[in-house]
């Protein structure tokens, strides 16, 4: 038996050959892991198709209005399509725990948090590409409606570039919030339900609660901030909603007008906070 094996001294010492898990290597490994599953590609495909189809239908429907402006229909598809990156993030964040693959991952990277950081980097790269493709498909979706009215599509004028940037950031925000919920709750369905409640149900509820309503004559009250509205701007769901509003709009009734940039900052802060909590828990808890 020993005749068939090489003497140990003939081999280079293992540790010297390639070293340990640097952050760059963990990112490369996570990229392989994300792209070698089918679910990211399916959710990406569904996101693009849904966004394109809805913006096409929405633009076609409103093209008969006298005040039709094609660029206003660009982001309508995201109302539904934003769920794609959310699902993608949740599946990616919870997947390791749901399947037990974290055992392999954490024995390779015992410090653990670099794995979560690398997942955020990889998901950002994947979703940025997905976001750009989605925006391009949404633009293509409104082209027929614009053409039917012989209207030019002014993508580089006014606030349209900002809105398109906001669309990409929205999809990225949803993916990263999904990742954070998945990493925190570790099971796909509870994470997805929680994310939907926080990101979709909560902003609608707060929006209704924060509306100051109308005066006795049925006229809208002058813009004033209600308590519910003040809370609302600090929630991730409202932040997401604000991302595709134009910078010059007054904001939603009863809420402080923080604009798309403010919404983006709120979303970013939530992403960082939730990922840090997930990372701290990774270090502190047993991985069974």
């Amino acid at each position: 038996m020993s005749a068939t094996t090489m003497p140990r001294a003939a081999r280079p010492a293992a540790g010297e050959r390639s070293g340990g898990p640097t952050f760059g290597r963990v990112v490369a490994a996570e990229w392989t892991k994300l792209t070698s599953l089918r679910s990211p590609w399916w959710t990406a495909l569904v996101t693009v198709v849904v966004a394109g189809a809805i913006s096409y239908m929405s633009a076609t429907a409103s093209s008969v209005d006298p005040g039709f402006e094609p660029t206003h229909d660009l982001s309508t598809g995201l109302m539904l399509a934003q769920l794609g990156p959310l699902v993608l993030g949740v599946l990616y964040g919870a997947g390791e725990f749901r399947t037990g693959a974290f055992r392999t991952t954490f024995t390779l990277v015992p410090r653990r948090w670099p794995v979560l950081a690398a997942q955020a980097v990889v998901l950002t790269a994947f979703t940025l590409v997905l976001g750009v493709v989605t925006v391009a498909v949404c633009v293509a979706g409104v082209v027929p409606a614009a053409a039917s009215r012989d209207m030019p599509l002014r993508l580089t004028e006014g606030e349209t570039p900002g809105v398109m940037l906001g669309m990409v950031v929205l999809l990225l925000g949803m993916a990263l919030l999904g990742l954070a919920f998945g990493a925190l709750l570790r099971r796909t369905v509870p994470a997805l339900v929680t994310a939907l409640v926080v990101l979709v149900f909560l902003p609608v509820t707060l929006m209704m609660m924060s509306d100051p309503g109308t005066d006795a004559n049925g006229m809208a009250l002058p813009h004033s901030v209600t308590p519910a509205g003040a809370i609302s701007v600090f929630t991730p769901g409202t932040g997401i909603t604000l991302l595709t509003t134009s910078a010059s709009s007054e904001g939603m009734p009863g809420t402080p007008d923080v604009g798309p940039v403010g919404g983006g900052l709120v979303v970013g802060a939530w992403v960082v906070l939730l990922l840090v909590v997930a990372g701290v828990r990774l270090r502190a808890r047993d991985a069974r």
Partner: protein
Amino acid sequence: MIEVEALTKRYGSTTAVDGLTFTARPGTVTGFLGPNGAGKSTTMRVVVGLERPTSGSTRVDGRRYADLPAPLHAVGVMLDARSVHPGRTAYKHLLAMAQTHGIGKARVNEVIAQTGLEPAARRRAGTFSLGMGQRLGIAGALLGDPQTLILDEPVNGLDPDGVLWVRRLVRELAAEGRTVLLSSHLMHELALCADRVVIIGRGRLLADATVQDIVERTERAGAVRVRTTEPEALARELLATGAQVTPAEGGALQVRGASVDEVGTAARRCGATVLELATESGTLEEAYLQLTGDAVEYRTADTRGGAR
């Protein structure tokens, strides 16, 4: 080298591992034996840093696992088959593992060939049989060419070819001077491939010795089995010489305190015709059953015959 020192792991009020101390040394296959729930897997998970000990410590090559600069090169780990994402192909799973340590694709293909995974390498791990899953786990453990291997139930679910292959592989790895810690509930399997055996029950150490030592400690070891036409006469004769005699299955007698020669001579003295006469040797399985304290339950004649 794996050192486990006074390791205790509790989950709430349950104690999974209770003051366990043992060392797995280089050049040795150390078998890790115990019934389900004895704390084998828990101990292994603590050693590779997935769980932290309630008290005590574990070290690999003198370091805490978390302090190893390149874990994949130091320790090859195969825990249960559920450590792989079922949606990923075997090749991509191993490639992602390799990438964390900057190991190239050539080495990935090498371990795939070494473990006989080529036909299944491009299939998703979720479609694998238990045996293929075990081969994938072993491939991952070999990836970093580590000095220490920790294999949890590696022969579980393998076909006879696979069992032989694992047996030869761990022997070779130990012959190369590596440390191999291998758990199994298949006691005869450990008897065939382990040099030392660490037996635990309810989280406590029951035995830590060579396979030979443990087998010799069984109560059957050193006894003489004799079957004769006149068992009662022979028993009386032997008792008179100071030997201890107990009935064994098949109408035979088990004799202690007398050699084969002495039993044969005693048979001639009382005119009994000897039909069968031999020394008995224990098995690791018997030693294990006696050590785990459930031995009483298994000491009935028929179970014992079946356990041989």
